[in-house]
């Protein structure tokens, strides 16, 4: 990842994420119906639509302003598990990126790490629990390695996306230990986690934007 990104780039990333969520809404809901309560698509879509509308209106000029607005909006419109978790992810991203107008690859990776830590602190899950962490955590690690190795941005994002998708796919055989799917015990095995699926879309959006 050779070059840095602007607040406008980050906003395009979030627009792309919102679009992907809308496109995959029904699938997210179907995944959640199988092992949860069938609202993950609606939750994410409601939150990202509101979030995008809020940042479009506020036209924030720093990463902090962008992600704080987005995170607050997601927290106060989604509810459920994904509201506080994605909300916290965005709020932490905002705090970590701060007011720098240009974000370096290393800064971005570090900010995502901070976001991930926020999700862990809020949800008290670990990788392997069959949650969004299982997609997010490997993606952040991949991004950190790429930043350290000085990989090109598009290649680094591609690597992070692959890691997220592998992580997402790896949730299928897992036994859920957190969230609603944990109520199913053994019956949660064999289903892909909805939250890991939307987390992978976050990385897909970075590739699509492109960031």
């Amino acid at each position: 990842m050779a070059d840095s990104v602007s607040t406008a780039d980050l906003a395009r990333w979030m627009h792309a994420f919102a679009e992907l969520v809308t496109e995959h809404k029904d699938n997210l809901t179907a995944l959640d119906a199988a092992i949860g309560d069938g609202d993950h698509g609606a939750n994410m879509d409601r939150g990202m639509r509101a979030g995008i509308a809020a940042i479009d209106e506020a036209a924030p000029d720093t990463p902090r302003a962008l992600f704080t607005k987005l995170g607050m909006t997601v927290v106060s419109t989604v509810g459920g598990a994904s509201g506080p978790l994605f909300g916290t992810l965005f709020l932490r991203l905002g705090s970590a990126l701060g007011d720098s107008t240009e974000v370096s690859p290393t800064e971005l990776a570090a900010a995502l790490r901070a976001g991930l830590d926020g999700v862990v602190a809020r949800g008290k899950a670990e990788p392997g629990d069959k949650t969004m962490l299982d997609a997010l955590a490997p993606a952040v690690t991949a991004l950190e390695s790429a930043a350290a190795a000085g990989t090109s941005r598009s290649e680094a994002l591609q690597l992070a996306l692959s890691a997220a998708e592998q992580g997402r796919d790896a949730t299928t055989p897992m036994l859920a230990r957190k969230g609603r799917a944990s109520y199913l015990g053994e019956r949660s095995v064999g289903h892909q986690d909805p939250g890991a699926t939307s987390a992978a879309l976050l990385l897909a959006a970075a590739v699509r934007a492109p960031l």
Partner: protein
Amino acid sequence: MKKLINDPQDVVAEALLGIEAAHPTLRVDHQHRIIARVDAPRPGKVGLVSGGGSGHEPLHAGFVGPGMLDAACAGEVFTSPVPDQILTATRLVDGGAGVLHIVKNYTGDVMNFEMAAEMAALEGDLRILTVVTADDVAVQDSTWTAGRRGVGVTVLLEKIAGAAAEQGRPLEQVADLARRVADNGRSMGLALTSCTVPAAGKPTFELGEDEMELGVGIHGEPGRERVPLAPAREIAAMLVEPVLADLPFRRGDKVIAFVNGLGGTPLLELYLMYNEVNRILAGHGVQAARSLVGSYITSLDMAGTSVTLLKVNDELLSLWDAPVRTPLLNWGG
């Protein structure tokens, strides 16, 4: 999907309009989706706030009133309320004696209430304690998991803690009492049919004409096991025995026995179930000192039932019997 609704998106907002119109004793904040006692805040009284996803009516709005909740927060269907909303409700009912949050143990509910409490803490001077219900024995309990779901005991807890608050007891005492209720109650549920979430438009799960889903919660989550259709007598055993074994309830214990309908089950069947439940309890030497039979914590239009037993002593019983004036529970001097 056959429902008495307009646009699925508007279900919660429109039901709140109906609640407001039907109950002059309640005040509804439509922006925040808060249902509160019309006389809130009550100076010097501990405020009780609960809330959760909609679709479980009458829980929680139907339990707002003297002797029970001060405010309820209604989330989207099956989606917990958001921190802003909870914080607004908390402020609304704080009469200076602090506020108890009553939360059903779902990751989303717990996190949103937690964030509201953190936001309140940042602002200072608002004292909040939280009690979490986690009474569903269908879910295996473990420190490694999200733990058990909060289901039927929530209704009993809101009544008992509400009575304690109404008596003017301090926040810590009300919270202690509430925790005792949470600790001494156990539940298990069974679905004869799936529910249909309005926004989804079709049943959450498919169930054959001769199947039932054992160990369901209240969100149309699949249960622990799919079993063949059985008579009420056997269903009662499938629900009561694991509940009894879990606490465990013992010979000589007194309980409040709560047979709940999940939304699409008529009262006739619930009374028939209550007979079976009561018979099993008697066989174990457990005394149903009080009963509650009806659809009080539901899962939209799901046909099915849940059984909750709460072990009680004289203090809890007298709080249960204390006057309550809400749309759905209403009794006493």
